[in-house]
């Protein structure tokens, strides 16, 4: 860490939970319900976030069945920086048994930045089937897009500089207590 680095919390655990609740309501409103809805988290932190969204959708609309409507979509093999970034071990991809054809797929990730992850996710999705609609929900949008991609549902817009780092800490991934979850900026 350099001497000039400082860390600022931009979302606490309660903020993350409220943002996910709001996104769940937005999804139901946009879809006019939850029929044909599939929520796919992008590993790693998108996966627990998708599970939480699924649980919230189940409380809003009892017709929503998280067991058959949740999954994970790994994008490792579709990245465009495979030659230059370190070799990565892919994470599991799990899709609902009924597949994604003609479904409304909501991709879930923690931070939207360059948009390259989402580009890779759209390519990966096309290899599994043909959804009717694909939407994007992110916990944080920090700007600096490099591709024409935008999120449909955003937990919080956080203006950042390119040299800053946004870190999302989630209980299931980072081994912290649920109360200690947070989003921080390292300047």
């Amino acid at each position: 860490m350099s001497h000039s680095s400082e860390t600022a919390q931009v979302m606490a655990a309660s903020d993350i939970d409220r943002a996910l609740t709001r996104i769940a309501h937005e999804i139901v409103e946009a879809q006019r319900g939850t029929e044909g809805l599939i929520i796919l988290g992008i590993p790693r932190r998108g996966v627990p976030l998708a599970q939480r969204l699924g649980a919230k959708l189940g409380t809003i609309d009892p017709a929503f069945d998280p067991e058959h409507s949740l999954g994970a979509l790994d994008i490792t093999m579709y990245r465009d920086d495979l030659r230059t970034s370190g070799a990565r071990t892919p994470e599991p991809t799990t899709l609902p048994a009924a597949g994604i054809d003609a479904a409304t797929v909501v991709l879930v990730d923690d931070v939207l930045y360059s948009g390259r992850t989402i580009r890779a996710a759209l390519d990966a999705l096309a290899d599994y089937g043909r959804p009717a609609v694909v939407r994007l929900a992110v916990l944080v949008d920090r700007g600096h897009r490099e591709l024409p991609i935008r999120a449909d549902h955003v937990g919080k817009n956080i203006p950042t500089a390119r040299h800053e780092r946004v870190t999302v800490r989630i209980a299931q991934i980072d081994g912290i207590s649920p109360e200690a979850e947070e989003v921080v900026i390292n300047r």
Partner: protein
Amino acid sequence: MKHLLATEGLKYHDALAILDTAEEMAAVTSREVKKLPTLRGRTVVNLFYEDSTRTRVSFEAAAKRLSADVVNFSAKGSSVSKGESLKDTVQTLDAMGADAIVIRHSAAGAAAQLAASDWSEAAVINAGDGTHEHPTQALLDALTLRRDWAAAHGSASPRGTDLSGMRVLIVGDILHSRVARSNVWLLRTLGAEVHFAAPATLLPLGVEHWPVTVHYNLDEALVAAPDAVMMLRVQAERMGGAFFPTAAEYSRRWGLTDERLTVVQQLRLGETEAPALILHPGPMNRGVEISAAAADSAQTRITEQVTNGVAVRMAVLHLLLTGDPR
């Protein structure tokens, strides 16, 4: 990791990374589009100085599923039969833009020499060098064993698990087997216990210094309750020589016969209720080292080994050819 030359010295976390990646690669084969764009625009050369249809086809399928271009180079009918050296062949292939060279050679150390040389910038994968090593075969065996071992022990997924506590019995021609050598090192790294059962004529010199338990009687070895029995292929060219007199005698003493199959059927995976496993690297000599009933038993994982071979080779190609090795 820049090359995959041997399982001896392969680090625990690298081995797990290959196996975990292979699990995801295996999932690709069950989906609608059985292809990944990962190695688009890269070239994989299969450089085979020894005949091998299975391994070459497996590497070819793996490379193609990752969208790589594949060039097959076999020594027969090539410039090699006109006397071209390994160096000149490799430099020719390098000039064509090979990103990975999968090499099988009758000389132990051929892959290592290629990797150590400045003949090519390509990643080198050892697909069998003499009687030395055949690392991807051991990795696919480990992937096969791990899946059953993890499932029997109640793991939802084999990812991140190893073979701690597993006992694997390798039977047959250890002396000439690179598969056995690669398996010893990898299985030990993953925490398994390795047993050999073989006639003294087919054990390598100095085997007492290997980290294995040696049995000179297959029935006694089976009493030691292995969790998996790996039958090695009897190479026809060894028969009738000094190694053993006849195929019938070999089969009676060292084969997985119908009688021994009834013993193996009683074996379990560790303390669980799941049955023990039978593996064979193929191609099988039915009726010699393995009876037809044993080959077709519900305990055998021989077709799974073939399927897992493609997944493991996809994983190795992915891990060696992505990322910046320098």
